C-alpha cells in the first residue's frame, strides 16, 4: 500500500538502495532488535511576571515566550540474549531551556542495560533518580528546587545537570514487581564557579533507594500506590566536609481506586544535610544566591500534590492537579514556596491541551539574594506524545502475564 503511493522513479531508487545495502537473508540469520520510539513535543506559551523586592532593587521581569523545553525523542532497542535475558540501549535527547548554555539539544539518555526477571543493570547517561516520587507538573523543572536532591557539583543554571548524569546502576525487583531496590554509583555533572562544565567524569556520588510500587498495569489496584526512601551521597570534598547527603522519602496513595475517576494524593520530603560544620553555605561555593550554594546548604523540601484523573471508558481524558512545594534552609531566614495548579484535556490519544499556573514566592535572605520576591507564570500548552513499538517479540517484566502467570524468559 505504501509502495503504491510512491512514484515509480523514487520507488526504484529505494529498491536499489535496499538491494545494495541489505545482506541476503539466506546468508545471514539475524535476530532483529525490538525497536521502540517515543517522544513528546511539548510547547507552551509562557506569560511570566516576576516582582522585584522594591522599585529599583532586584529584577523585575515580564514577558511572553514560546517554550519548547523538555520536548524529547527517545529510542529504545533491546533484544533477547542466548541466556534468554535481555539487553538493550536507550538513546535520547531533549531540548533544554533556551536560557541555559547547553546548546540546542542535550543528550539525556545514552545507556546500555541488562535485564532479567529480578535484575536490571544500567550503564551510561540516564536519569539520576534523585527523588522518591514524580509530581504532576507540566515540566520536571517546574519543581526542580523542591522535588530533587540537587547537584552540589554544579553551579550551572539548568535543570539537566540536576536530573541526568552518568551512572552505573543495579536494581532488584521482587514481590510481583512491587518491591524495588536500587544501588547506584554515578558521576553528577561538575562545573566551575561560572557554571562551565568541567571534564570531570569520575564517580562522585553514591545512592540507594528502597521502594514499593504498584506496577503501572495494576496502578489502581491498591490504596498504597508508591512508597519509597532513598539517599544520595555526593562526595563534594570541600574544606567543611567530604559528603553532601540528601535523604528523600515519599508516599502516594489512591484516594479513589475508581479507574474512571482516579484521585491520588502524593507527598515527598527531601532533607539535604548540607556540608560543613554548620551544614550551611560553603564559603567557596558562594551563597544561597547561586545554584551550587543552595545545593550545598542544609535544607528541607516538601512537595504534595492532589491529582484527579477522569478516564471515561478507561481512556485518559482530563487531568486536574494541584501541587504545592515548600523549602526552607536551616540556620538562615530563607524559604521558598510554590503553588502549581494545572489542568490538561486530552483531545485524542497522546494529544493534550492544557494550562498551568505557577506562583512562587521567596522570603527572607533568599528573596534578597535572588533579588525577587514573587513570580507568577501562566503557561498555555499543547503536548503531542507518542510511543510505538516494532518487532515486539518478548514481554516485559511488568506485564501482567509475567507478574501474575509465570515469567517467560
Amino acid at each position, binding site marked *: 500500500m505504501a509502495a503504491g503511493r510512491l512514484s515509480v522513479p523514487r520507488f526504484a531508487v529505494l529498491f536499489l538502495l535496499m538491494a545494495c545495502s541489505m545482506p541476503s537473508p539466506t546468508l545471514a540469520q539475524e535476530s532483529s532488535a525490538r525497536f521502540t520510539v517515543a517522544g513528546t513535543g511539548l510547547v507552551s506559551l509562557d506569560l511570566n511576571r516576576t516582582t522585584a523586592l522594591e522599585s529599583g532593587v532586584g529584577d523585575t521581569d515580564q514577558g511572553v515566550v514560546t517554550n519548547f523545553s523538555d520536548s524529547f525523542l527517545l529510542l529504545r532497542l533491546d533484544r533477547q540474549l542466548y541466556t534468554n535475558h535481555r539487553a538493550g540501549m536507550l538513546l535520547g535527547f531533549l531540548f533544554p531551556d533556551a536560557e541555559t548554555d547547553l546548546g540546542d539539544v542535550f543528550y539525556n539518555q545514552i545507556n546500555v542495560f541488562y535485564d532479567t526477571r529480578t535484575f536490571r543493570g544500567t550503564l551510561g547517561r540516564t536519569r539520576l533518580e534523585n527523588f522518591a516520587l514524580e509530581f504532576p507538573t507540566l515540566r520536571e523543572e517546574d519543581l526542580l528546587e523542591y522535588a530533587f536532591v540537587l547537584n552540589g557539583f554544579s553551579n550551572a543554571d539548568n535543570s539537566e545537570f540536576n536530573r541526568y548524569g552518568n551512572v552505573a546502576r543495579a536494581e532488584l525487583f521482587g514481590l510481583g514487581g512491587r518491591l524495588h531496590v536500587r544501588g547506584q554509583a554515578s558521576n553528577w555533572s561538575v562545573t566551575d564557579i561560572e557554571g562551565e562544565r568541567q571534564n570531570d567524569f569520575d564517580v562522585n556520588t553514591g545512592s540507594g533507594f528502597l521502594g514499593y510500587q504498584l506496577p503501572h*498495569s*495494576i496502578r*489502581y*489496584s491498591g490504596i498504597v500506590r508508591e512508597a519509597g526512601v532513598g539517599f544520595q551521597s555526593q562526595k563534594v570534598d570541600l574544606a567543611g566536609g567530604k559528603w553532601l547527603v540528601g535523604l528523600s522519602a515519599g508516599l502516594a496513595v489512591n484516594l479513589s*481506586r*475508581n*479507574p*474512571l475517576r482516579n484521585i491520588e494524593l502524593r507527598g515527598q520530603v527531601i532533607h539535604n544535610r548540607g556540608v560543613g560544620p554548620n551544614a550551611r553555605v560553603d564559603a567557596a561555593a558562594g551563597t544561597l544566591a547561586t545554584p551550587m550554594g543552595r545545593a550545598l546548604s542544609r535544607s528541607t523540601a516538601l512537595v504534595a500534590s492532589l491529582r484527579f484523573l477522569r478516564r*471515561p*471508558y*478507561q*481512556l485518559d481524558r482530563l487531568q486536574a492537579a494541584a501541587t504545592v512545594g515548600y523549602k526552607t534552609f536551616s540556620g538562615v531566614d530563607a524559604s521558598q514556596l510554590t503553588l502549581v495548579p494545572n489542568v490538561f484535556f486530552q483531545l*485524542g*490519544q497522546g494529544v493534550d491541551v492544557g494550562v498551568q499556573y505557577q506562583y512562587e514566592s521567596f522570603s527572607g535572605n533568599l528573596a534578597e539574594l535572588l533579588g525577587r520576591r514573587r513570580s507568577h507564570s501562566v503557561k498555555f500548552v499543547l503536548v503531542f506524545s507518542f510511543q*510505538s513499538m516494532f518487532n*515486539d*517479540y518478548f*514481554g516485559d517484566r511488568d*506485564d*501482567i*502475564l509475567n507478574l*501474575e*502467570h*509465570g515469567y*517467560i524468559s
Partner: protein
Amino acid sequence: MSEEKPEAGVYDRRGFLHAGALGFAGAMVAGNGLDVPKGPAEAVTRAAEAKATDTRGGVRAWPDRPEGWWRHQTPVLSPTQAPVQGIREIELDVRIIRHEIVPGYSFHVLAFNGQVPGPELRLNEGEWVKVYFTNRTELLHTIHWHGVDLQYEQDGVPYTTQHPVMPNATFEYTFQAIPAGTRLYHCHFGTPLHMQHAMHGALIIEPERDPIKEEFGYTRDYTLVLESFATNDSRDDLNFMLERMKQRLWLMKEGLLDDETLAVFETKQALLEAIEAGWDPPYLPNRNQKRERAAQDYNFFAINGKAYPLTEPIMIRRGETIRVRFVNGGGLMHHMHLHGHQFWQVAEDGNVLRSPLQINTISLGPGKTADIVIEGYNPGYWTFHDHDTSRVTNNGMYPGGMLTMLVYEEMDDYDGYHPKIALDE
C-alpha cells in the same frame, strides 16, 4: 474387512521379493519404502479395484442402507427435558498457563483444564451431558459446542445466548449429544484471542453403529487438533485485556460499570443514542489504531498443542487401517497432505459423506472437522503436513510447525534410512 485386503497381499509379495534381492533379513521389511513407486494413479486404481462392487475410482459406496440414513432426525430437546438420572457430568475450567510448544519456546495461553488443546471429550450419541465450566481467569469466557444441535441457550455465544461467564463463576451447559461425529468445543468470547490461544478441543460423539467402523474396520482412532498461534499478538492482547478487565471487575463490584465502558448495549437503538451523545465506539481509529490488531501475525503452528519436532507421530502397521479425525481449532486454512498414500475421506464437519472420497490432501478451513481412513499398504516413514508450507515453520524457520509423520511400526527393524530431526533448512 482387514483380512480381505488385497493391497496387503500385493505388498507382502512384492516386499518379500525385494527383501530377498537386497539381502534384508526376514519378511518384516516387506513393503518398505524402497519399492519402486508406480505413481499415484496406480494406487488410486488399486484401491478402487479393492472393492469389487466399486467401479468409480476414488469414490466408494457405503453398504446398502435406507435412503436418507445419514440425515440426523432426532428432535432437539431443551435442558428441562433432560432425564433426572444418567446424565454424564464433566468439569472444565480455564486457566492461564505457560505452554511449551517446541523445546525452548513457551507462551501464555488460555487453556481448558490447563491443557492445549483442551481435553478430548468423548460422548455417546443421544447421551445427556452436563458440563460445569469454571472460569479461573480474570477474563470473560463461554463454551460453544460447535456442530452440536442443542437448545440455543446452551450454545455459548456471549451476549447472544448467555451472559459471559464471570471470573470464578461456574456455568452449567446441559445438552444431549447429537448428532454423532467429530465436532469441537471452543470459547466464543473474543475468539481471535480466546479460541485460537488456545481454548479449543475435540468433541467426539460416537454413534451406536458407526458406518465408518463397519465399512473400514479401523483398529486405531487418532485425533489431530490443528492450531495456529500469533504469540506476539496474543501476549499483547492478553496483557491489554487483563489490565482492562481488572479495572472493569472493580467497577462491576462497585456497581459503576456502564454500558459505554463495557461496550455492550441492550438494543441497537441504545447504541445509536450513545454514539449520538458523543460516545466513540472502540473500533474507530481514534480509539484503536494498533498495529496488527485485526490481522494476526501467526508465528507458531501446532498439532495437538505441539509443533514439529514435538508433534506425536501417527503409528500404523502394515495391513492395518486407522481413522484420523482432524479438528481445526485455529483461525487459518490448512491443507494436510500425506505422502505415499491415498486415504479415504469419510466425514466432513462430523457428518458421514454420502460416499467416501479417495484423496491425499485434505483442506480444512477454520472450525472445520474431517475424518479420514488410512490403509497401511506402504510401510515407511511418511511425512504428513500442511501443504501451505509457511505453516511448516517455527517462528519463520522451516521445518517446524504443522508437521507430523505416519510411521509404520515395522520400521524399527529396518536398517535403511531413518528420519533425523532437522530444524534449519
